[in-house]
């Protein structure tokens, strides 16, 4: 069964069950996203994908709003554009988005003022370095939950990550804030793969950013017992 709706004045026939985001794709309209990822269940958290629907009091998150027969949808109205721009400005005020090129691009596209909220309290927790493979640098975390979802029922079914705290203090963590090696984590890194801001980043990558060369990176945190490998020279 197909639905007929209008997106930015264009009539679209979308399969029943489509989200507004999928319907917009049929109209060749790209929706900007932050929390949405193709591999995780959409949950409408970030609200960057909002669109305006005629007759609706509030803006609708396109990733989780089902398309309906006869809907009149506007994806680039002044109200939509202002909402998206403001959201970017607020995120940028409290979170380090320096390693989120897609969000940086959106800030350019929406002409966001990167200094609009200079007094905002920045999220600045210490970098968590507790395993050989990746670090958790949560001053870059914008709480999209993709990592939690990837670790749970969307990709890995391992359930090592969860959310903790409330409101502004809500954050991604582990059960009892345990270090990763003490959790059910199997270091698949599927969480790292879906992180949009490099809050989760492989150690190799972060050491390269810090200017270490590959040789030093390889020696970093190597097991002392194996400092000399009899079969291949120094580790």
């Amino acid at each position, binding site marked *: 069964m197909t639905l007929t709706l209008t997106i930015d004045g264009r009539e679209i026939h979308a399969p029943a069950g489509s989200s507004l985001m999928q319907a917009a794709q049929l109209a060749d309209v790209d929706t900007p996203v932050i929390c949405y990822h*193709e*591999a995780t269940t959409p949950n409408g958290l970030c609200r960057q994908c909002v669109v305006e629907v005629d007759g609706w009091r509030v803006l609708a998150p396109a990733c989780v709003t089902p398309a309906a027969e006869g809907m009149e949808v506007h994806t680039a109205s002044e109200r939509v554009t202002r909402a998206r721009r403001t959201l970017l400005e607020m995120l940028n005020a409290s979170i380090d988005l*320096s*390693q989120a*090129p897609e969000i940086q691009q959106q800030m350019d596209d929406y002409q966001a003022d990167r200094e609009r909220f200079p007094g905002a309290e920045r999220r600045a927790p210490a970098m968590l370095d507790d*395993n*050989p*493979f*990746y670090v958790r640098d949560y001053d870059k975390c914008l709480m999209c939950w993709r990592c939690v979802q990837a670790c749970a*029922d969307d*990709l*890995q*079914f391992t359930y090592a990550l969860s959310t903790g705290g409330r409101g502004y203090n809500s954050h991604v963590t582990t059960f009892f804030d345990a270090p990763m*090696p003490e959790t059910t984590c*199997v*270091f*698949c*890194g*599927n969480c*790292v*793969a879906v992180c949009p801001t*490099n809050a989760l980043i*492989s*150690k*190799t*990558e972060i050491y*390269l*950013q810090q200017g270490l060369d*590959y040789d030093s990176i*390889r020696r970093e*945190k*190597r*097991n002392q*017992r*194996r400092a000399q*490998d*009899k*079969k*291949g*020279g*120094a*580790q």
Partner: protein
Amino acid sequence: MIQAESIVRSTCPYCGVGCQVNLHIKDEHIYKVDAPFQVAPNYGRLCAKGRFGVDFVHHPGRLTMPLIRKDFGVTPRQPVGLEGFREATWEEALELAARRITEIHQQHGPAAFGTFASAKVTNEDNYVFQKFVRGVLGSNNVDHCARLCHAASVTALTIAIGSSAMSNSIAEMKDLDVFIVTGSNTTETHPVISTFLREAVVNNQAKLIVVDPRQIEMTEFAEVWLRQQPGTDVAIFQAMAQVIVAEELFNQEFIDARTEGFKDYAAAIMDCTPEWAAEISGVPAEDIRTAARLFANARTGAIYWGMGISQSVHGVENALSLANLALLCGHIGKPGTGLNPLRGQNNVQGCSDSGGLPHVFTAYQPVADDAIRAKFEQDWGTTLNPEPGLTVMEMVDAAASKIIRAYLIMGENPLMSEPDLRHSRHVMEQMEFVLVQDIFLNETSEYADILFPATSFAEKGGTFTNTDRRVQLIRPAVPAPGQAREDWAILCDLAKRVEILLGRPASIGFDYAHPSDIWQEMARLTPAFQGIDHARIQREDGVHWPCPTPDHPGSPYLFEDTFPSGRGVFTALDVRPGAELPDPEYPFILSTGRVLYHWHGGTMTRRSKLDDIYPDPTVEVHPLDADALGLADGQWALVRSRRGQIKVKTIVTERSPQGVVFIPFHFAEAAANELTLDARDPKAKIPDYKMCAVALEPV
């Protein structure tokens, strides 16, 4: 932010899942690995090894120059480190190798060669390897580590249905209805497959039956967990079959149309009741009934298994008992069903498919078949040996009795993977000539006379075939270290030199410009591959063989209409004891296997960041046993068997049952195979790595 200079699509070099990876390259190094979310078989998912463990590629221990042993010609040979070798030019090393091979061939004939193809290198490398061994040396003594892993599964499936690979694909897993996982610690050995199996349970309400002595993670997702005593698998599955027959839960239509021998089989197993099996296995009879009903009443039922089934002195019977269940219920030949041995190595399926076995050419075409042999003889322009060759452990026997005098080994580490290592080392010491090509000096290449430096997966092109028969590409991503060369290129140079020294009038063809040329030749000789070439894989990311024509879509699942052998065959089975049972002197059963963070003999993962998270050899001991032995968690223990002893760190856990200890086999400093027993399944010749008797004490 770090910007990649290039991103190269490849196939993960670790397990048989065959995950597609993107290698991110900067300054000729792989600094990051991720996976495309739209592409089978892994759809973006990876495990620790694939995502964080390919740093071995850049380890300074990589072999960069051809090496010749300084005491070349001295027997018995001793293992030596790099200091025991001298660097040589390719010209010198190849010429010396060709001369030694020729001398041994002239003195002792083709039977003097034992050769090891490799489940780690490409199909193309393996094809050239067996072409050299069969076509130039005239020997069929070519085998590889598949013999040590799924030989029993292959033998059993050949008996039951005439096939030898996973019948169904990974893509079907998330839509399963009921499935059995047995003898497979899937979360650690096939981590990405385990995510799809868990997805079936968690998101799609599939029912999982786990049959395993160890409390593996998959048990947390199971509807029923049958915790049998090690080595009693046949009793469990035959009792499930008995329930299905007695309660008439079988699929009469399927049995009539597709199988033979049902009546005799049904009569033969009537006394194999769940109570009978409970006595043998320690599993409550009612649990066996529940599992049997669940499986038989399923819309679709699939069976997945690993080494726990095959690595046994009755491995063939274990796997046959699973085939019986699938045939009884008609759970084969449809999506979401099937008999699915999970293959271990990245290209163990492909090495077997490419002719790396003693009795068959490519895609299981028998060397003893005159018409098949004539086809290869005509294409290659030579005469070929009709006698099937020796299997891995038979080659060790033949070497011990001086029939085999030279080993040619490509990318395998038999001195970690064979059982009873002390015996294997002794045999190796006596060899007249040992030629190895590999990427590192390891426990086997320490015995080499000549050691050729080979390229890793990241430095060459070609194809790997994963566990669900999907042929996928690897692509060169970084330059080869030093003078390392592709295995196929080394073999071609060597083969041409041996042909000349042997005075052959014409070469059988070792002039390939690219791995795709090798694939073309292989496909020409192999009906099941004829629809596949590198260009098509490039377009489609991967193709499941059999694929006979370019317009054939490939075969994600098999046996829809018929079995290769015609009708499926039921086999009534006797329950036989293990080869070595515990006694007062050696009171524990030892089972060996793998852990998530390491890979087989450890040649790669012990040279990776992965070693940081799992640095020490371990033994799992039940708390009651640990108390009785005075062993604490984290304490070092000496484990002894009648063959040898090793020192390992104790993990006190209820994961292994009382009376059973588990030791992973990745650690050269405490190789589990010092302890294991060379007792083999009589049909498949696979050694039993899952059951021997040991004693433990604190140190």
